[in-house]
């Protein structure tokens, strides 16, 4: 179970939220730009340190006494693929597996290569592939370690619809098979809705509404949320 109470003061807003999720559940964080969605993921991942609060995942306490990044059982995917440019695609994806992958791990890597359509660029330098391919590689690299907690921070922004559809389909299949807990941040409701049946809506650093998408759409808590959910 994930239990996260995060208090983080920033110059432009103060984030103060409490999230609780069962193991294997998924949650979408929805809100306008600058509402604090990414800060929450960043604090759980350990990239940023909360000013106060408590973050636990299962038996592990992530904060306070921040757990070092390499001991966190977390997969973290952001808008930037952050691939290691001096390594090949294959080396990037196997990066988190340590030294020489086992036969079992090699099978899993081959699965990822096939399902994400990476065979053509498998041995290419990561710095030479296209933006869309880089996102797929970043997704494969995150999944390769089979993290029990997955944090996605607008991972599909700027990609074409077809690619987004493929990546979401793949992600949902892996979520079902690996049963990881997942939090997704996005400002596009239709993307979040596909990835998670539950949503928490943020405004100015606070959760103003929680529930399933049907409830939120039926009775948005604020005018801003109503506008965010309205079709263009």
């Amino acid at each position: 179970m994930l239990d996260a109470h995060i208090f983080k003061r920033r110059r432009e807003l103060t984030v103060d939220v409490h999230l609780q999720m069962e193991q294997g559940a998924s949650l979408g964080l929805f809100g306008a730009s600058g509402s604090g969605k990414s800060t929450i993921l960043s604090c759980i991942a350990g990239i940023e340190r909360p000013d106060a609060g408590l973050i636990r995942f299962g038996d592990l306490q992530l904060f306070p006494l921040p757990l070092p990044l390499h001991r966190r059982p977390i997969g973290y995917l952001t808008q930037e693929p952050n691939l290691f440019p001096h390594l090949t695609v294959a080396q990037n994806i196997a990066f988190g597996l340590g030294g020489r992958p086992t036969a079992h791990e090699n099978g899993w890597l081959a699965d990822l290569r096939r399902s994400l359509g990476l065979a053509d660029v498998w041995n290419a330098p990561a710095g030479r592939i296209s933006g869309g391919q880089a996102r797929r590689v970043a997704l494969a690299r995150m999944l390769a370690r089979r993290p029990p907690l997955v944090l996605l921070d607008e991972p599909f922004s700027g990609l074409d619809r077809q690619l987004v559809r493929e990546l979401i389909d793949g992600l949902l299949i892996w979520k079902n098979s690996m049963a990881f807990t997942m939090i997704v941040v996005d400002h596009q409701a239709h993307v979040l809705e596909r990835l998670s049946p539950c949503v928490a809506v943020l405004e100015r650093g606070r959760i103003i509404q929680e529930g399933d998408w049907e409830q939120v759409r039926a009775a948005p808590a604020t005018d801003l949320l109503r506008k965010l959910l309205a079709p263009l």
Partner: protein
Amino acid sequence: MPRWVARGGVVLFGLALLYPLSGLLVHVGPWRWDAEVANPTLASIRVSLLWTGAAMLIVLLVGTPIAIYVARAAARERLWWQSILILSILLPPLALGILLSMAFGPSGWIGHWLNQAGVRLSNSTAAFVVTQVYVSIGYYILGAIAAFGSIPAMLEKQAALLGQPPWRVFWRVSFPLARLGLAVAFSVAWVRALGEFGAVMVTAYYPSGMPVQLWVNLQSFGLPAVMPLLVVFLVTALPLPWAVHLMSQRPPHA
């Protein structure tokens, strides 16, 4: 202005810049390599290569962790450290030599204790190495800070989130991405230390390294005794920084 005119101007400038090297071809009479010249000259080559090498090892081992720390420090703290490092570069070599001999001499705070412990930091191998470290470490660390600072911090954090402990993040991500910048910084420090004359002249006239021996040969025997050592000096000092600089200018393959 037509492009060929500009190119011609740059070519002329390049020739003027390289012109001093033609001094190697000037007739100065037969080069001297008798025992009187050869023995101290060979000793100076050994001193320079061996003890500059030792100094460079210290520069690497001490400078690299400091550069990593400063490169990842907050902007204000980084500026503070950089201002101290640049001070060591800006000190005129002769002034640095005088300051070193005073600070590490019997009247200096540390020098007083070293003297009591029997460590002599004047005209000794230790003095030679310490001086070389002082004159070169600022160049290495500032270059290394730039090299590490050019790596997006998020890459290292991502590597850590992929389960890699800090030392593996360094070896698998930070070092490979910074290595060319580190090599440039190291080669600048190397050539700076190997060619140091002013500070070493004050702190370690003995054992003489190549620059001091060049001066001694020039004063004692004239140009014919200088030429062999000059060639060795150029061959040992220049190729490393030259090659590294050329490599660093090549477009990255990825």
